[in-house]
């Protein structure tokens, strides 16, 4: 499963920020982790005593198999994967919450893990006391934690509630406090697991602003998420984990694309439609038409497909390239094409912010009956290799017909079988 020149789509560009020259601050080598899940859990001494000779039987769940990667200083590194792919286990191993069975992880600098906002807060204590406690938990000394107290309360805008017990806080105040603690802990490496899932959009935005500021300040951020918009817009590099294995490390766009492919392909049980990123361009509409020009959900085998997509640029897109992939249900690219803007003589190749572009026409349909979908990749500044967008699933359709065959496409084959005269 790779996106190559053969598919006719823009070769994937390198990461927006070149990091490989910087020193490594997290180095993971062949990390493995297996959970032993007992079929029948013995959790009392009584059971142990009454069945002393029954060997416990376990199901082995191989959460991580030989994971290796490097994270460089000042990098914003994303770890993506579906539920159960092992990404959170990996984070917990990095955070010294679980112990790896094999392999080695080395890190440089002080680490602050944020597996969940507000863990370790005691509702019976005032926020002042909680901040001190959490600060020490994050690796500050008591002195340092006390010095940071004011900064934390200011950041959380909770100064006048400093001596209120946490149980009397609203959940919003609690989240603000937790986040402020995290920010002011000022760790060299921040490990973050989906903390952005809490809070509203404005809060999530504030979080991202802070993470970006951290990164600018030379801190390293590792973010575990399955929000591809975050990955695409913030990460310098991303790693895709699937079934406990590294499937891809590198360009976040590419990682996101592969993530989508993993999600939309296969069993289809997780056909997520949300989370479609629209940072640089917005999808206005995408639909298919049949030969008669009517909008359709599905197309008949052999009938030409009317293809229509409209985007609106959110920023000026210079030298935009619109790439499309037709993928089969198992995630394979069947075919693809690229289009650039049709321009009049002397017109600059820019799609200005707010302008719309329509990509439409008809496509020969050699697809075999089955399910297909279309994803897109919009890039700009092609010569600089700067990817603007986006991976998103535009369309999802069926080809119906009565002449199934092997493979995803049928070709005209002018071939006959004749008896040879001997």
């Amino acid at each position: 499963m790779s996106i190559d020149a053969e598919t006719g789509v823009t070769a994937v560009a390198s990461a927006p920020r070149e990091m490989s020259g910087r020193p490594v601050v997290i180095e993971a080598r062949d990390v493995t982790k297996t959970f032993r899940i007992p079929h029948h859990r013995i959790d009392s001494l009584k059971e142990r005593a009454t069945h002393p000779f029954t060997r416990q039987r376990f199901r082995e769940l191989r959460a991580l198999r030989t994971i290796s990667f490097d994270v460089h200083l000042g990098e914003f590194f994303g770890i993506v994967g579906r539920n159960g792919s092992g990404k959170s286990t990996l984070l917990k191993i990095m955070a010294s919450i679980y112990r790896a069975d094999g392999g080695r992880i080395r890190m440089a600098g002080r680490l602050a893990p944020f597996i969940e906002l507000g863990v370790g807060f005691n509702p019976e204590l005032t926020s002042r006391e909680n901040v001190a406690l959490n600060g020490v938990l994050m690796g500050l000394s008591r002195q340092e934690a006390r010095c940071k107290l004011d900064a934390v309360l200011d950041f959380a805008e909770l100064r006048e509630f400093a001596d209120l017990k946490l149980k009397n806080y609203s959940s919003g105040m609690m989240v603000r406090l937790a986040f402020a603690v995290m920010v002011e802990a000022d760790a060299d490496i921040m490990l973050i697991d989906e903390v952005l899932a809490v809070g509203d959009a404005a809060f999530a935005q504030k979080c991202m602003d802070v993470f970006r500021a951290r990164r600018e300040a030379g801190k390293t951020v590792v973010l575990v998420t399955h929000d591809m918009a975050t990955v695409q817009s913030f990460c310098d590099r991303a790693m895709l984990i699937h079934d406990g294995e590294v499937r891809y490390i590198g360009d976040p766009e590419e990682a996101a694309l592969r993530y989508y492919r993993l999600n939309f392909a296969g069993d289809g049980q997780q056909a997520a439609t949300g989370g479609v990123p629209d940072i640089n361009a917005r999808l206005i509409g995408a639909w298919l038409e049949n030969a008669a020009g009517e909008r359709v959900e599905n197309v008949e085998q052999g009938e030409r497909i009317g293809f229509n997509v409209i985007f609106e640029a959110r920023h000026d897109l210079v030298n935009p390239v619109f790439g499309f992939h037709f993928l089969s249900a198992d995630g394979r690219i069947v075919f693809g094409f690229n289009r650039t803007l049709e321009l009049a003589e002397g017109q600059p190749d820019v799609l200005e912010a707010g302008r719309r572009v329509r990509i439409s026409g008809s496509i020969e349909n050699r697809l075999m009956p089955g399910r297909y979908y279309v994803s897109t990749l919009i890039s700009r500044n092609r010569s600089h290799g700067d990817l603007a967008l986006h991976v998103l699933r535009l369309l999802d359709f069926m080809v119906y017909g009565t002449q199934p065959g092997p493979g995803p496409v049928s070709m005209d084959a002018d071939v006959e079988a004749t008896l040879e005269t001997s």
Partner: protein
Amino acid sequence: MSATASSPLELRDVRGPSALGGGWRRSLELLYLIAATEFKRTYFGTALGYLWSLCRPLLLFAVLLAVFTHVVRLGSSVLHYPVLLLMNIVLFGFFQEGTNTAVGSVLNQEAIVRKTQFPRLVIPMAVVLTSAFNLILNLVVVFIFILAFGVTPMITWLLFPVLLLWLALITAAVSMILSSLYPRFRDVGIIWAVFATALFYATPVLYPVERISGAIGKLVALNPLSPLFELARRWIIDPHAYVNTQPLYVIVPTVLTVGICVSAVWIFNREAPRIAEAL
């Protein structure tokens, strides 16, 4: 960048969770902070906080005093029996409260254990330390009673901290064993509650050790807590009190104490890395 990260680019191994993950200094600071805040919470939250906590040993003391001076009539023949009883109850109360609270402590702190990088040992130790603060407050009351009952201050009073440290050591060791086993074996809590009650009677708390004879008496004398209570009685209340100095009754409790401490460290170290997974 803080001073602790003076050489931020030196790669260090991530060893996973452990009893003292994150170093001694951090563990000690966390230990102190947690115990102190917990202590403050119990006593400064309510006006009667401290008086309430004093109620339990004092009530127990009043009941037992009534039983042993008027019903069993043991008390009248023992020098300063009431204050001896009070001191013993407070000392044993520390052991009992500490261990009973520690049993479920790691499990109760599930969120912290599973979601933060937390030195595991700090959790049961904080419980013991909170109980120790409590003990010290209670001992102030005990000494007021001791003086009020006409016990003359002795030079051996200065040795009392040794006994306290000894008791704290045993309490901490037992707490470590219990709290690390509890996530895996949930009936440890019930078993310990019963066992601790039995231990209360098998320790010379209510009676002086020389009053018990026969097989039971030998058993009591072998209890690792017994020498501690015998010494407390002699050093604090009655300089002529009996202390069993036969080699057997010195060696066995000592070996048992050392055994408990060693196995506590061994068991806790073995369990600590995997506690988060067992929860």
